[in-house]
């Protein structure tokens, strides 16, 4: 069991002390987080680390997961794509399934939700729960992890009616926020340096992935870790690899994708990826279970360069993970990747497979640059994107909700 004190050697004792002081006025606060999956995807990962730490700091925190059938997740996947800008027509019958599923979940969760002081609803799946909790006494916050900068309007109009009733929203970046009639907080997500996916590994554990996946330890690996999702552009990554391979025939590509229980499109995209790979023995398309955290960790450490060539991205936690492991990242010039990949400092931003190929070639020729960027990348994550910062901002947000809207809240004077 990880304790908050275990983070002190990584972030500094002063950061831990600060969290304890900030949590002091929030002790006993009843907080409930609600999302739609326990496994797979960035939201579940964030909650898995955030919830126990909030509990340790004295808050009374629960994590609830709503249940739904295939048609419910078909509908919410449609929402997800539409909110990221894809024209998706979500049929009326699916919307009925969506609302009915939330109504059924509300039956099970109502007493917990209505009694809570603060309820965080993550992403669109559980949005209508609020409607079914008429006697709620706490503040309800919609935590949107999606890039909402250019939503497909008909779907956003439909969902907005649910969002409007919340007390506040949280977006990862200002660019993602859509006008809503309440306060819009900004909190970028984070990674847990002590989780299986990010903790230090022995050389033996890293080496194990070479034999397990038939990789050549002597040749550089280009790696993308992400779900098989068109917005992650895995086909574009293969094209970039092919262009780079013309100049670096020794290059290997690993695409490592996990599955999330709320993503029904993965199979179709995986088939497209395999077709594009066309049996190239240096392209390794891996389908890993959602709990293969140590394997992902080892692959990221084994990689020479990490790529995240998304064309749409909420935040891109896989980028943060790679930077934390001291790897420069070639990232798509979109969403939260921009906040993390700083051209020529922590990696390169690209817009096309051609651009990605060019940067891969550049880094293959500049090992000293790879090392220099790696050091900068790790420090950048240490200062900005670890769970302790996320926790601090969530605590600050709850202080803000509890103590008022003025520009400066002096806690000493309130207690």
């Amino acid at each position: 069991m990880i304790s908050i004190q275990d983070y002190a050697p990584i972030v500094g004792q002063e950061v831990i002390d600060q969290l304890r002081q900030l949590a002091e006025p929030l002790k006993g606060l009843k907080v409930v987080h609600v999302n739609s999956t326990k496994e797979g995807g960035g939201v579940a990962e964030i909650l898995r680390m955030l919830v126990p730490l909030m509990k340790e700091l004295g808050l009374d925190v629960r994590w609830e997961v709503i249940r739904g059938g295939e048609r419910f997740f078909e509908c919410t996947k449609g929402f997800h794509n539409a909110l990221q800008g894809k024209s998706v027509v979500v049929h009326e019958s699916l919307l009925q399934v969506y609302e009915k599923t939330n109504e059924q979940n509300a039956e099970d969760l109502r007493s917990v939700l209505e009694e809570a002081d603060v309820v965080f609803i993550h992403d669109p799946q559980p949005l209508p729960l609020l409607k079914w909790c008429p006697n709620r006494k706490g503040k309800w916050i919609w935590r949107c992890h999606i890039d909402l900068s250019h939503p497909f309007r008909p779907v956003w109009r439909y969902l907005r009616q649910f969002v409007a009733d919340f007390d506040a929203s949280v977006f990862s970046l200002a660019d993602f926020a859509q006008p809503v009639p309440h306060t819009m907080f900004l909190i970028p997500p984070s990674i847990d340096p002590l989780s299986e996916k990010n903790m230090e590994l022995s050389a033996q554990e890293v080496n194990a992935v070479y034999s397990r996946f038939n990789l050549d330890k002597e040749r550089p690996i280009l790696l993308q870790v992400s779900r098989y999702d068109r917005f992650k552009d895995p086909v574009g990554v293969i094209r970039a690899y092919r262009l780079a391979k013309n100049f670096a025939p020794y290059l290997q590509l690993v695409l490592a994708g996990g599955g999330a229980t709320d993503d029904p499109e993965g199979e179709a995209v995986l088939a497209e990826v395999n077709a594009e790979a066309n049996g190239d023995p240096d392209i390794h398309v891996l389908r890993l279970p959602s709990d293969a955290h140590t394997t992902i960790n080892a692959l990221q450490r084994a990689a020479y360069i990490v790529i995240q060539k998304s064309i749409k991205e909420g935040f891109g936690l896989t980028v943060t993970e790679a930077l934390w492991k001291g790897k420069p990242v070639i990232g798509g010039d979109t969403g939260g990747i921009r906040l993390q990949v700083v051209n020529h400092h922590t990696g390169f931003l690209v817009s096309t497979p051609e651009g990605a190929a060019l940067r891969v070639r550049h880094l293959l020729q500049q090992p000293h640059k790879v090392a220099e960027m790696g050091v900068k990348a790790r420090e950048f994550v240490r200062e900005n994107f670890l769970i302790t910062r996320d926790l601090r901002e969530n605590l600050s947000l709850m202080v803000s909700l509890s103590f008022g809207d003025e520009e400066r809240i002096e806690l000493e004077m309130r207690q």
Partner: protein
Amino acid sequence: MSSQINNGRAFKVKDCALVAIATGKRAQNLRELRDNLAVIHPGSIYYHFWAGRLRPRFDDPQFNNDFAVWAHYALHDDPLAERLAVIDPCEFQDLESLRREIIEVIEERLEEREWVPWVRPDKQFHFVRSQIVVFDTHAVIERPEDLCDIVPGLSVGSVFYHFIDARRREPLAIDDFRAWLMGFGDKYRDFIMRLAAVEPYFVTLVELRRQLAHVCMRSFDRRSQ
């Protein structure tokens, strides 16, 4: 009012955390930036000059405020970026006079240009405002010499609160360390001058803490020699 004016009292170490709030206002060209600046919540000016330092971001060593960064990276207007970057927010009595100065610089540039510079929709300037949550760490510094032990262990929130945020608190509008040390008369004059020479705008808060710790150590080594 500065929290650290010395009336023979110890220095109370405070800490702060930032709550960033999207205003929903954005600018896609320089004229929109100016128009929004004229009406934006003063907390947004504060955020883009000071509080943003507490936000996750890569600190650009070239520019000390978000308006200059946007002018350089999004508008690609370096004369404007340089003029905005040179604005020292501490020179202005309040946020309203700082606001007027920024608008003045932008208007001057708009008059110089034959067309209004603009950016792609995904490079817009987003106005953010902030709330600051200030809390007591229960740590006190009795003697200036003790700063050598305390400063290296300060959180970045404390560094921000005492060394940057303090500069907009009346009546002294300087950092809290100097405000406190001045209460001892001339005794720490050299130390005060060294602290005044620490430039807070071009380094991360972690690096700023390192520089402050170095100044403390250096000052007291010299005194002890």
